[in-house]
């Protein structure tokens, strides 16, 4: 397929072809400065406040419009999508029912966060309408707005506005923006890869796994871009400026997710939201844990593989992946291989991948009936905050529930990488689940972890948190008997 040198998307129902260095801009900047759509605001430029929220529709998909953070979404990765901004929500000079609700309940004060809230609430209404819901609960509204900060209202007026949205009379906005014509155009465009050069920087959006590997070999040191929620922040904060980007979004198979027996297979481009939807019935604990991890806007973009490849010691999904027998599948121009997650991280933000290898997908287990799994997280603020310490514990019991077949205890935020508490696991495996020596296990844990002090907590705090998490878990294990 012939490549193209532009990014193609529909913005508020109109086709846009973006060329040159604008492809590397954050979408929010592109919207405000180039498209002169200034309703979208930029506050934090790191995906933590939601003022820049816009709706994204996936072409060829039946999924509802979803909010994303336009401040950390590079223009290039929006190729092939429908984008809708706050500027287009008024139809024929009539405010949308959500906008009316926000006015009715005094949902805006200074107004700077208001467009983001309106967009996020619109996303919620679109999603719930699709699911056939007739009304919104307080919890629906709060969960949908976890990624939006407001400093004026104290949120109560916004909650009131959200709960008051009448879904029965709500009609989806997508048909106003998504037409057969635009769907066709996007579908066609997505078949051809992107290759462009601007001011010495290169952008590639290949369409197959083998093309990715080839490019990586040709351009060693280029950056792989999946959901881009971390790279976008690093670029905005001046920490990195990748010269060559290989973006994965046009590789169809990387969007695939499947469950076979108790193993989940997830491609590198599967977003956390898609994963959550898929796992809702299979693993309640993990999917409800995802509710306090990040915001809808982030989860609609970020991938679990990105979380893994980013190798942060406090990545929130990582302790779970550590205890759930995750296998990491990598590819390169030389072929494919798999690595156990235990061997993936070699140091602070370092992976054991060989030169030019990249992660195509992962597989992990979901807990069965004889598995007792719990996830913990502690942060300054409960929601949408980076953890001081997080943990995942998994005990597989034998049929009598008297002893553990295996136990896996994983922690984040207690060392340079997420870790398994191997000494503690060994001690637990050697004891009966009925009368294990709790104090001894807790003491052993302290030999497994070596946290540092930083702005999220002192090393003492982290040691105590690790202790408290395990103590709480062990109490629950004991109760199972």
């Amino acid at each position, binding site marked *: 397929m012939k490549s193209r040198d532009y990014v193609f998307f529909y913005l508020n129902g109109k086709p846009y072809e973006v060329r040159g260095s604008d492809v590397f801009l954050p979408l929010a900047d592109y919207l*405000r*400065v180039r498209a*002169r*759509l*200034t*309703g*979208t*605001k930029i*506050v*934090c*430029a*790191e995906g*933590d406040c939601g003022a820049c929220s816009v709706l994204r529709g996936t072409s060829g998909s039946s999924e509802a419009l979803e909010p994303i953070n336009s401040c950390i979404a590079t223009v290039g990765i929006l190729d092939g999508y429908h984008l809708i901004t706050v*500027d287009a929500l008024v139809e024929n000079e009539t*405010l949308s029912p*959500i*906008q009316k609700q*926000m*006015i009715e309940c*005094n949902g*805006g*004060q*200074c*107004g*700077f966060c208001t*467009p983001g809230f*309106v967009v996020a609430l619109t996303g919620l209404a679109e999603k719930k309408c699709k699911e056939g819901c007739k009304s919104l609960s307080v919890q629906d509204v*709060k969960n949908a*707005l976890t990624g939006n*900060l*407001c*400093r*004026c209202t*104290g*949120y*109560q*007026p916004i*909650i009131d506005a959200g709960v008051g949205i009448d879904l029965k009379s709500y009609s989806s906005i997508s048909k106003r923006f998504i037409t057969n014509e635009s769907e066709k155009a996007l579908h066609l465009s997505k078949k051809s890869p992107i290759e462009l050069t601007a001011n010495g920087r290169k952008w590639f959006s290949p369409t197959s796994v083998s093309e990715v590997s080839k490019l990586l070999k040709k351009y060693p040191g280029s950056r792989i871009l999946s959901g881009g929620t971390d790279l976008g*922040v690093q670029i905005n904060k*001046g920490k990195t400026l990748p010269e060559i980007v290989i973006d994965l979004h046009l590789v169809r198979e990387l969007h695939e997710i499947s469950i076979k027996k108790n193993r989940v297979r997830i491609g590198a481009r599967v977003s956390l939201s898609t994963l959550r939807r898929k796992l809702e019935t299979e693993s309640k604990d993990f999917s409800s844990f995802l509710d306090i991890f990040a915001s809808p806007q982030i989860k609609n973009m970020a991938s679990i593989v990105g979380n893994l490849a980013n190798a942060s010691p406090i990545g929130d999904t990582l302790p779970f992946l550590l205890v759930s027998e995750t296998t990491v599948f990598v590819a390169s121009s030389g072929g494919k291989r798999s690595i156990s997650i235990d061997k993936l991280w070699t140091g602070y933000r370092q992976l054991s991948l060989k030169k030019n290898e990249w992660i195509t997908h992962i597989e992990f287990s979901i807990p069965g009936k004889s598995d007792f799994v719990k996830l913990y997280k*502690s*942060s300054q603020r*409960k*929601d*949408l905050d*980076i953890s*001081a310490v997080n943990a995942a514990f998994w005990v597989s019991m034998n049929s009598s529930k008297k002893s553990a077949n295996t136990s896996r205890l994983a922690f984040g935020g207690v060392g340079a990488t997420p870790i398994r508490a191997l000494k503690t696991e060994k001690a637990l495996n050697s004891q009966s689940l009925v009368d294990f020596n709790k104090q001894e296990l807790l003491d052993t844990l*302290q030999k497994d972890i070596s946290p540092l002090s930083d*702005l999220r*907590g*002192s090393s003492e*705090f982290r040691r*105590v*948190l690790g*202790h*408290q*998490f395990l*103590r*709480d878990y062990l*109490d629950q294990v004991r109760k199972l008997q």
Partner: protein
Amino acid sequence: MKIPHDSAHTHVSGTSEYIDDRAAHFDEVFIGVVFSTEPHAKILSIDSSKLEKHPDFITLFTYKDLSHNKWGSIFQDQPLIAEEIVQFVGEPVVLIASRDRFSVEALKKLVTIKYQPLKPILSIDDAIKANSYIGDERTIQSGDCEAALQKCDHLISGSVVIRGADHFYLESQAAVAYPLEDNQIEIHSSSQHSVEVQHIVAHALGLDSKDVVCIVKRIGGAFGGKESQAAPFAAFASLVAHKLKRPARLILTKDDDMIMTGKRNPFQNEYVAGFNRDGKIVALKVKLRSDGGAYADLSTAIMERAMLHCDNAYFIPNMLIQGRVCKTHFHPHTAFRGFGGPQAVATIEKIIEQIAKHLDKDPLEIRKTNVYQGNNNVTHYGQPVENNVLPELFDKLETDSDYWNRRKIIKAHNSNRKWNEPLLGLSLTAVKFGISFTTRFLNQGNALVLIHRDGTVQVSTGATEMGQGVNTRIAQLVSEALGISILNTRVMPTRTDKNANTSPTAASAGTDLNGSAAVIATNKIKFRLAQVARNLFVTDPALYASKTGGLGTQAEVEVTELPHQTNPNKEVDTFGIEFKNGKVTDSKTKKSISFESLINEAYLNRVSLSDYGFYRVADLGFNKLTGKGQAFLYFTNGTAVNEVSVSPINGEVKILRTDILMDLGRPINKGLDLGQVTGGFIQGAGWVTTENLYYDSKGKLLSHSPSTYKIPNIQDTPREFNVNLLENLGNDKNVRGTKAVGEPPLLLSIGVWTAVNDAISHLPEYEKKYPSIQLPATAEVCLRAIQPDLFKTVGANK
């Protein structure tokens, strides 16, 4: 009738314009501010050689380019741009003008500044040791505190550490300046104080005030953070525009804004309280020490308000309050909603809880014993507490919130709790907040009211709209006075060429000062219009000026002016003519004319349809030297019951239920007022729990964005949140009997912090001693208090 915020419809549709939404001129330049990375150092050299090679670089500016470099709202002690010495991390050193806004961050990195570090002062304790202060110690006292402390039944003493907080307005500091002909400057600033921006820009550039117009359309959040500290950025944009003769824009990133600008002043207060066995406090001695940061800014005024709020809602006959601002090498701390009041109220509310612990009584009993009531109604600065609804606020909320029943349930829960079940805490606290600037001359406002020939109205005042709805309230006051629809009234952007010598929109007084001035101006026009109407009603309509086609055949209506007015509540004599529902009607004859037609007739009769109103708050008389007098026009009051849970696993605090009861007089716009209550409360709740300013050993703020600085999220709102207003029609001192609402509700969040202390104090180790945790009660702080032994044993592992 429900009246929404005047910008509500543009806010929700994304069409409200903020500074950076203004379209760029084709030759506009973008400004980057390079700031100090040292807390205290001598600047040895500035190397810009690499910068000069960048294609987008235009030029750079230093302090040498300014006509005058010193500024300050109270003391002019702060350089706009550092000269030889830098005094905080974040202090501006170099301004860069760039052709492209997207190159600014890269350009900033190309400047190398070499420093010779000097010894920094990075805590209140170090400042005290080094005798490093801003201003002298001040004292406010009543009775004979030392003597009373000798005589009372019990004494407690202690100290409280209260840390700062970032404003986290969503729109970071922003300004865009346009050079006009003849060396004039038009500066658009996200500022609470248009006139101060005008003055500072003029002074810095060596211009006259007549050459500078500052315009504030709206502010994307301020909370005090743009009272003084918007001005330097406006001055930078103006300097660049003035020198290059090109429009210049300066938009800080959130990170740079948080590093460069000051916060709520941290305080460290020591106290001794004497009380009798019934819980009556007879003497209170408090020594307040605040961290002012590197320059004076507003810190001395903030300290003054703190000293005036050490009593809060409680009558204490003998008080000795001493306060002094410490000079450190942090960003200059500044106004933040409450302006020192919260730091003082947290102190006295904590003292009360500690007294209750000491006497083994419920804190509510102690509060009710001490609340201002009956003849116990004179503050330590000698102002009587009039129209006092505090006892009523306590009694009503005590009942409405089911306080005693919940207290019983919480006690039972806490004593039968398993180790990993949450601790519950409950606290009923109050606020009595003084309304007026404590600096008398600031208590003035002016307004310009223009009625156009179609009968629509434009109002201009010095008030700046930052979300609080001051424009809406002013529009309501003017529309009601003229009997027209609010849709026919627009409050215009704040401009210094329309309203001069105005005060900052601060101290919760925006509506009070500017709304009063607007009413006074409107009344002057209304008095003239009534005379025109009176004349028309006895004239044959065929002979109205509009019908005689400008032939000049009829005599004109002669009107007299309304005698000078200072009280916006004084009814204007309209000769029995009513202005209502867009009509002007003679109440006796029922003859009527539409407002619009009346305006046209008045115009054709050469009657002025515009006027200017001036308002000064009457009867203020606080003497700063004696610390005595009428500091405030009135008080806004409230009470709140907060119930929290604290996790013994990880120290996490949750607000389970909040019941607020406030006295806001007679609200002009109840919906907007309630928004101030919930907003102020939640903002305070962040300050007392999760907001943690984390500095490195060099005094650089590391938590400088929302990923590390955690303001409340929607999930942090109380599970149950009840807000009610007490009916109080007795505040005749203020326009329309309303009360200011901006700051007071924030102080009710202090009850979240005392409730956390209450929860922790149920643990056996706190049977005799009050937990005394710092403010904010972060998860780590709480867990340390709950599990002190674990921190000693487990935490000590290496």
